[in-house]
């Protein structure tokens, strides 16, 4: 049992490192592609080792702690960010029967843990003793707390349809078609809201107010350097991966291959593609969409950001949940 846990722990850390490297290089390549330039192309074959080189650089850099900072909180904040990201990894099903912990309240667990993320950002912003950091942290607090509601409500739509909080149950329920196809309009609406809300929750552009470069220099991580900065950086990418994985699991069937109702022959052909490829394919597609947002949209202003949530997304998702519940009770879905 203990050995199993150690192996799982090492595997998660390994996955973290690998994901961080892959996502950073992917982000830079996507950015370069959108921005009509080449992107990293010097280190390793086609620049694939660029993020590894960057990591080494960050590792050997001095991790400075400002004089006026609250030393304990300042140094502790990046670890909380990292721990939250790691904890979120537990209930995710990477492939068929490949899951760290298949708990019966998987979805609840994810929504609960992901809201701890804001604590690390507030902590970092407060402890830095820097006005930019503080403002970034306050913005981030307001933003994450509000968008959590929409994200939660859009996840609830799927829970209502499936009737279970268990990740495996949700995936198996999509064996005859993904929710995005089966669930009619309510699921499509909640999918769109989910993508918007998680983009905001992970502090990615166009909702990157917490680090708004042109306004707050770097927001809550202005004072961080070296590996402590790298942990925030890594946590951001891991979070992007996790929210996309959750989106893929809930709306696009997770590892479940593309099935259409009872077309047995077609479904069996689809089953030949390994389930892990389905999972990662869907996840990376969503990651690409979020990166696409980042490199095309301008940033919102703080009041517009909150308006969007409280005046539009929240009422829509509440009504949508009501609609979905009615449909689930009446059985109006495939």
């Amino acid at each position: 049992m203990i050995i199993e846990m150690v192996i799982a722990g090492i595997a998660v850390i390994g996955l973290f490192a690998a994901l961080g490297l892959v996502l950073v290089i992917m982000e830079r390549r996507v950015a370069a592609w959108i921005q009509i330039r080449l992107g990293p192309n010097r280190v390793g074959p086609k620049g694939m080792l660029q993020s590894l080189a960057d990591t080494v650089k960050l590792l050997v850099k001095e991790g400075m702690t400002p004089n006026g900072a609250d030393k304990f909180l300042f140094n502790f904040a990046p670890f909380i960010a990292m721990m939250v990201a790691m904890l979120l990894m537990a209930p995710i099903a990477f492939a068929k029967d490949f899951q760290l912990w298949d708990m019966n309240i998987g979805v609840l667990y994810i929504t609960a843990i992901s809201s701890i993320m804001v604590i690390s950002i507030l902590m970092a912003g407060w402890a830095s003793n820097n006005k930019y950091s503080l403002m970034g942290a306050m913005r981030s607090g307001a933003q994450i707390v509000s968008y959590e509601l929409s994200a939660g409500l859009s996840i609830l739509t799927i829970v209502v349809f499936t009737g279970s909080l268990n990740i495996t149950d949700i995936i198996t329920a999509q064996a005859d078609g993904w929710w995005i196809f089966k669930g009619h309009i309510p699921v499509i609406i909640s999918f769109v809201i989910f993508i918007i809300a998680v983009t905001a929750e992970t502090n990615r552009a166009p909702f990157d107010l917490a680090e708004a470069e042109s306004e707050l220099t770097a927001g809550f991580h202005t004072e961080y350097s070296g590996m402590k900065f790298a942990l925030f950086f890594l946590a951001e990418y891991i979070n992007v991966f996790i929210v996309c994985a959750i989106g893929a699991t809930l709306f696009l069937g997770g590892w479940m291959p593309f099935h259409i109702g009872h077309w047995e022959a077609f479904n069996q052909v689809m089953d030949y593609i390994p389930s892990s490829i389905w999972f990662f394919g869907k996840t990376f597609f969503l990651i690409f969409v979020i990166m696409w947002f980042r490199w095309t949209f301008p940033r919102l202003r703080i009041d517009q950001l909150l308006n969007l949530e409280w005046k539009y997304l929240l009422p829509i998702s509440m009504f949508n949940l009501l609609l979905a519940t009615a449909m689930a009770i009446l059985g109006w879905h495939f």
Partner: protein
Amino acid sequence: MFEEIGTNTEGDLIINVGPQHPATHGVLHLVLTLNGETIKKVEPHLGYIHRSIEKMCESLTYRQFIYVTSRMDYLSAHINNHACAISVEKGMQLEVPERAQVIRVIMDELTRIASHELWWGAMAMDIGAFTPFFHAFREREKINEIMEETCGARLTMNYYVPGGLMADLHPDFQKKVKEFIILFKKKIDEYDELVTGNIIFINRMKGVGLLSKEDAVSFGVTGPAGRGSGVSNDIRKLYPYAVYDKVQFEEILETGCDSLARYMVRIREMKQSILIIEQLIDNIPEGDFQAKTKAVLKLPKGEFYTRVETARGELGVYIVSEGGTTPYRIKFRSPGFSNLSALDKMARGSKLGDLVAMMGTLDLVIPDIDR
């Protein structure tokens, strides 16, 4: 205690934007008084790159001082040079050959497009969209190449001399400019697709940084920033110089008085600049590119004031001559300095995020403010 946490006695947060800050595009230093995210006061502190060009020019001859001015508003280097060249020509009553005048106007307009493109990219980056910057630089690069071929430099060109131009055009000039016109007309629509029509962008710009027409005049806000408030102040139309009276173009006026209006003025102005270049590029008259001048230029005793329209607004060059080979006193009325003075008025009561939109649409170039 208050000093320690950086608040004033009313508990407002005092925050320094700059001298090194990603949104100021240079070493501008703004001291903001904030109540939460709302701006109560903006106080610019200048001088981080003040080189005292006015004082330097007092010991430079009339041939030399023109080139220092390239370093003022480095994005409209040609136009600054043009203003100085006109002042000297006015004083000496030099007749500039038609060919030189036409080339000067083409160069000025190319500079204006290049400057507006850089502004467009940088402003979008301030708002948080990074991609436009690269798209803008792609086309700007073409202008820089054209400039490099003819002038030998890409940013501080130093191409104008009193009485004309330093050298004749590169043989490829007309061909390259025509290619650029075709390319640019396609790309300007792409700009609109990428930024102008974006709902987030419009929300960020509309109603932000309001500056009424009366205030714009009172603060001396000129150029596209003033025209965004509906003030007709295009020197090219009002007091035409070179061959601007012979070409057809529109003075762009918007009445929105906000950041979006200032943005639209610049976008539309780029199209007008293309129009001017199109009219002139096939009609560059043959002849000398430089008038015959003496080796040593001496201006008669008196005062000479020249106004030109740079990419940022009205540049005034005020030369006071005592009859010698160097100016006795020279004053550059730079557009950025006056435009910046209106920032406090515009910013009060708006959010911190709006400040970057305002600074972006005022198109501040710090060496132009500091001189």
